[in-house]
């Protein structure tokens, strides 16, 4: 996977962790099981990762984040899992060329899993 895309996917995964860590009920459940989550540490990791995103992609990611809670989504069965629009078949071949791509319908950054 393209390095920039990899970072963007990691960012979104960390946002998922942050969501759990900031959900009082889930955070409490994790803590009771012995898996305390530190939202400040996760946020610091997110900030550090953001610094690794090049300016063009970072600006786009941050604009998307204002519109969607999930600015980076996988493509499944030929559909963007953010808006469920069809993704052109050329997506897979372009992905192989290691480019960061976005959904033509909603604009989310998409990746193949």
């Amino acid at each position, binding site marked *: *996977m393209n390095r920039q895309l*990899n970072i963007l*996917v*990691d960012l*979104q*995964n*960390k946002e*998922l*962790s942050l969501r*759990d860590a900031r959900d009082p009920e*889930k955070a409490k*459940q*994790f803590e009771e*099981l*012995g*898996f*305390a*989550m*530190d939202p400040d*540490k*996760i946020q610091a*990791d997110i900030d550090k990762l953001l610094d690794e995103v090049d300016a063009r992609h970072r600006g786009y990611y941050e604009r998307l984040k204002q519109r969607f809670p*999930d600015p*980076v*989504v*996988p493509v*499944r069965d030929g559909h963007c899992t953010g808006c469920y629009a069809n993704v052109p078949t050329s997506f897979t071949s372009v992905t192989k060329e290691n480019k960061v791509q976005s959904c033509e319908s909603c604009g989310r950054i998409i*990746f*193949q*899993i």
Partner: protein
Amino acid sequence: MDIQDVLKLASAELFLPDLQAGDKDGVLEEMVEVLLMNRKLSSKDTVLSMLKSRESMGSTAVGPGIAFPHGRTLATDDLIIVIARSLAGVPFDSIDGDPTHLFFMLIAPPQDSGNQYIRSLAVLIEKLGSAEVRAALLKASDFEAFSNVLTEE
């Protein structure tokens, strides 16, 4: 949710009876590799990065000889459990400092209905609280025997 429900998320294909890895990163890689081999994932980097990030917040080796590497990722639609065992034991930054022998890896999707992810962790942790169960799991010959130990009353 009970242990039977949790075991439905695991399978013989996702069971590693004798890990070869000798350190924490190696264990995570070996366990994620089995997901790749069974086409549950197409790329391991995203999941490995997520798991290592979770470990950096504190080791998931919270029980005697047991670890529960876990986290949410965009890379899966369904909760998946990979089970592995290291007969030799692996240093996993456990609370008691002892080597870890049993690993239950939970890879959770961004959203899971009914809080299946946390509930599965809770069921496993409760079941593995028994020293007798842990000792029997170390001797189980295959996934079926392993499952039988966990489901025995």
